[in-house]
């Protein structure tokens, strides 16, 4: 009796690109024996759990709990899991294997619904059988702040309550209770990072991570594991899920809690050794995957953000002799928190249309150009090397992300950030919904009051970061023969150099897909005009076009103005000496800023 469909392979279409994301998830990471892995998505989840509850009450016996893992794949700092175990007779840990990671819009609708329906039918039969045995009366899970997560959990809660099952939810995926931050900001999430920092400095510090689950805590609680558990509920392998694993290189980012905990120790060791806690200077090495990198583990919850937070604090106090740590110490964690907060009440956070915080920019529709970018065929070695690393390993340095995001959107190709976000969702290990969408909006200057003048040059930026070009040679072996002088713009290399490198541009490696100077000139003009209409700024300055926030980081309510602007006598906030009566603005800049 297998709980997942053999028919899956054709549905998943052997998509290798997803494989390493899943591999993080599926490496045996549970110290707990016998996690129960079920297939399916949101719909089946609801039904399944309902089936599980829909049985018998415990009257005098200790409750039988289910702990539902979604993220939070760890034993340490898992208050919800502790609640499952507390005084329970039996506890079962359940995970729904959702290869598409709820919220991903990559799959075509038909495939998804067919997949769901088939799973559904299969489930409902099998679960009916097991639920009678299990007699569940308590359900626990970690709080999920993302909008559809909240919706799904509300539905589950309702079902559970109706079935008389106690539901316990604990916050441990974020440092703070996000609703408190929003409340403190007058009901709106802060839209500038500085404002966010101000708010959290007013809150109580995050709660301490709770003790990891141990034998003592388990007490008399057992997890019933039957003989055929592995067959019925075991973690499927990638092959079983239909992925083609032939030739897959060893994972650069091995999954799981054990790995995460080892890494955090290494990470802190390195910080202590450096001992100044300053932002490390970017160099060529930073581009490569680091054995102390933590972001994918934070995303899946293999590493608790609170544990990380407190370990950083302790270390700082030890090294700097008890002084108070600055907020910049927790940069990575706080950015994550910032985007979670911005997204939690906004179901359209990952879209431009209908998203109250996103500027409507008339991006181009160009699937061919998008494909070139996604598949590392732009002709700009810096961009292509980064995208290759992303595809192969699932992680790129954050400045590399800025470079490729700028190139795709406001820098060169003028393609929507939503497209870039979808590609990252597929390829990037640490891209969860809120952080990915938020970062893309930020980097494309679609939100958060960002200045748009700084364009990352696809040649110069890479050259300044890694003058020798080793990063490029590593991920684009075809260009290995080029000297450092030309490796960032090989199309400028004389024919002799190209021949010597055994790589003719246009033949063995594509020509650059845009003329960067022209593209960036055009695009900066477009951005300027869009923002001028947004801020009703009529002057000549570039910087003043971007509306500034009023002190509470919420921005003013800008009026809605499609169509042409009348250059008016109405004045604006800018005190620049020049105003120009005839600055026109494109008809397309429709926006709604709040």
């Amino acid at each position, binding site marked *: 009796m297998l709980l997942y469909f053999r028919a899956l392979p054709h549905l998943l279409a052997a998509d290798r690109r997803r494989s390493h994301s899943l591999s993080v998830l599926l490496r045996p990471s549970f110290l707990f024996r016998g996690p129960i892995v079920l297939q399916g998505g949101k719909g089946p989840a609801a039904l399944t759990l309902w089936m599980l509850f829909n049985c018998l009450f415990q009257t005098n016996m200790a409750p039988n709990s289910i702990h539902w893992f979604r993220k939070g794949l760890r034993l340490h700092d898992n208050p919800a899991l502790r609640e499952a175990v507390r005084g329970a007779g039996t506890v079962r840990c359940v995970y729904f294997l959702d290869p598409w990671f709820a919220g991903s819009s990559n799959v075509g609708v038909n495939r998804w619904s067919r997949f769901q329906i088939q799973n559904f039918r299969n489930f409902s039969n099998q679960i009916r059988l097991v639920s009678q045995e299990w007699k569940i009366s308590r359900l626990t899970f970690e709080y999920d702040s993302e909008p559809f997560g909240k919706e799904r959990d509300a539905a589950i809660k309702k079902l559970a309550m109706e079935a008389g099952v106690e539901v316990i939810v604990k916050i441990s995926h974020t440092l703070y209770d996000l609703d408190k931050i929003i409340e403190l900001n007058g009901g709106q999430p802060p839209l500038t990072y500085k404002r966010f920092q101000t708010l959290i400095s007013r809150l109580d510090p995050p709660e301490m991570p709770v003790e990891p689950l141990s034998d003592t805590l388990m007490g008399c609680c057992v997890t019933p594991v039957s003989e055929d558990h592995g067959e019925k509920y075991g973690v499927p392998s990638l092959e079983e899920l239909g992925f083609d694993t032939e030739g897959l290189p060893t994972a650069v980012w091995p999954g799981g809690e054990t790995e995460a905990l080892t890494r955090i120790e290494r990470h802190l060791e390195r910080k202590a050794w450096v001992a100044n806690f300053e932002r490390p200077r970017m160099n060529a090495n930073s581009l490569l995957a680091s054995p102390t990198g933590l972001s994918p583990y934070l995303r899946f919850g293999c590493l608790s953000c609170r544990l990380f937070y407190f370990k950083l604090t302790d270390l700082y106090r030890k090294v700097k002799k008890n002084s108070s740590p600055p907020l910049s110490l927790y940069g990575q964690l706080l950015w994550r928190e910032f985007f979670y907060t911005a997204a939690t009440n906004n179901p359209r956070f990952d879209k431009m249309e209908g998203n109250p915080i996103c500027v409507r920019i008339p991006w181009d*529709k160009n699937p061919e150009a998008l494909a070139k970018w996604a598949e590392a065929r732009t002709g700009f070695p810096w961009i292509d090397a980064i995208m290759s690393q992303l595809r192969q390993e699932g992680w790129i340095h954050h400045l590399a992300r800025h470079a490729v995001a700028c190139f795709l959107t406001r820098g060169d190709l003028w393609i929507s950030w939503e497209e870039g976000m979808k590609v990252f969702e597929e390829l990037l290990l640490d891209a969860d919904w809120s952080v990915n969408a938020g970062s893309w909006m930020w980097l494309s200057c679609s939100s958060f009051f960002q*200045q748009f003048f*700084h364009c990352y040059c696809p040649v110069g930026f890479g050259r300044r970061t890694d003058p020798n070009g080793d990063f490029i040679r590593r991920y684009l072996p075809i260009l290995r023969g080029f000297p450092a002088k030309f490796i960032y713009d090989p199309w400028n290399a004389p024919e002799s150099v190209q021949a010597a490198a055994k790589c003719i541009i246009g033949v063995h490696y594509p020509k650059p897909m845009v003329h960067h*100077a022209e593209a960036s000139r055009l695009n900066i003009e477009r951005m300027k005009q869009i923002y001028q209409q947004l801020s009703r700024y009529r002057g000549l300055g570039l910087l*003043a076009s971007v509306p500034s926030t009023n002190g509470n980081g919420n921005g003013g309510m800008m009026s809605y103005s499609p169509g042409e602007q009348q250059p008016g006598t109405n004045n604006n906030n800018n005190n620049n000496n020049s105003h120009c*009566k005839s600055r026109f603005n494109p*008809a397309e800049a429709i926006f709604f800023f709040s």
Partner: protein
Amino acid sequence: MKRVKGGEEGSNGSCSKSPPPDARKKVRRELSEASEVVPASDVSEYDWSRLPQELLLHIFQYLPLLDRAYASQVCRGWNQAFHMPELWRCFEFELNQPASSYLKATHPDLIKQIIKRHSNHLQYVSFKVDSSTESAEAACDILSQLVNCSLKTLGLISTARPSFMEVPKVESSFTRTIIASFLSVCKAKNTNTIVTKQKGILCVADQCHGLRELALNYHLLSDELLLALSSEKHVHLEHLRIDVVSENPGQHFHTIKKSSWDAMVRHSPKFNLVMYFFLYEDEFGPFFNEEIPVTHLYFGRSVSKEVLGRVGLHCPRLVELVVCANGLRPLDEELIRIAKHCTQLSAIGLGECEVSCSAFVEFVKMCGRRLSQLSIMEEVLIPDHKYSLDEIHWEVSKHLGRVWFPDMMPTW
């Protein structure tokens, strides 16, 4: 002037949803039935069609074109207001081919109507054209029909999509055709064909004495043009926008004599010179060696420390400086020099650069409160013995007189 009350939309003069005449009568009746306070004689005041033209004009000026167009369909009075000359001083024609451009083009019927009824009223005209010849031809066609306009501004902007390396640039031919057409509009004295692009724009300057704004590529700029623009018969130029774009590395650019710029400044003391540079670092040779009256400067690619040093020396009228990238050597001296010599500087933006915290604080102190825009990426500031990153924003805020933080980028 009586205030007209009633109607569903009360605020902001937004007329776009105003009811058609029949509904208005209905509303009027309902209102008169509902209200007891208002005497019956005032019922006739609730009539949108009796709104004075001056008010209508004022309200229409707030509306975008599309909404105004809808409003003009409401009644004859509003239609008249829609066509009042004051609303047609400026227009931007957008000409694109739908197949290749996301941007919407100005509707041909609208273009026809403008030419028919408003060509006399137009004073500020701009053409935004993509890289197709059809669009360029359409633009010329429109221009040739604007016979009697007293154009004060002609903007020639090409919204060409980023071109692929092999395709020849279209903008130059577009500019040529536009200028040629324009000459016929302005009843040029001689109808010789234009030999070089420079000569062409020169003719424009010669003929259009009312020209107040000009935007062009650097290769169209010449000493002769500047002198023509500063001749006595020419009005004061308000704004000159120049884009300096490198097509190929190592491209050579001509220099403009200081005397030409001086003539410009003498003639139009308040004019703004906006320059956008998209050059490779080693192509800046011809620039900033002598004093130049640039007011707004943008470096879209990396610019060297040395060039920024020259900017500090030779740009006394500088109002805004935006640097995308510089490199990894601190710009301390250059910034201080800019603070000292560019006394009009009120906006500065630094991207991928480096400045030590102390030098930055010094810079802000020297500029003081005139800095209304200070956009510095967080990575730019290098902490030193005097200031750490956390302390610097207090110092800077103090000198600026308002709360200031550097710009941040997410690190995830």
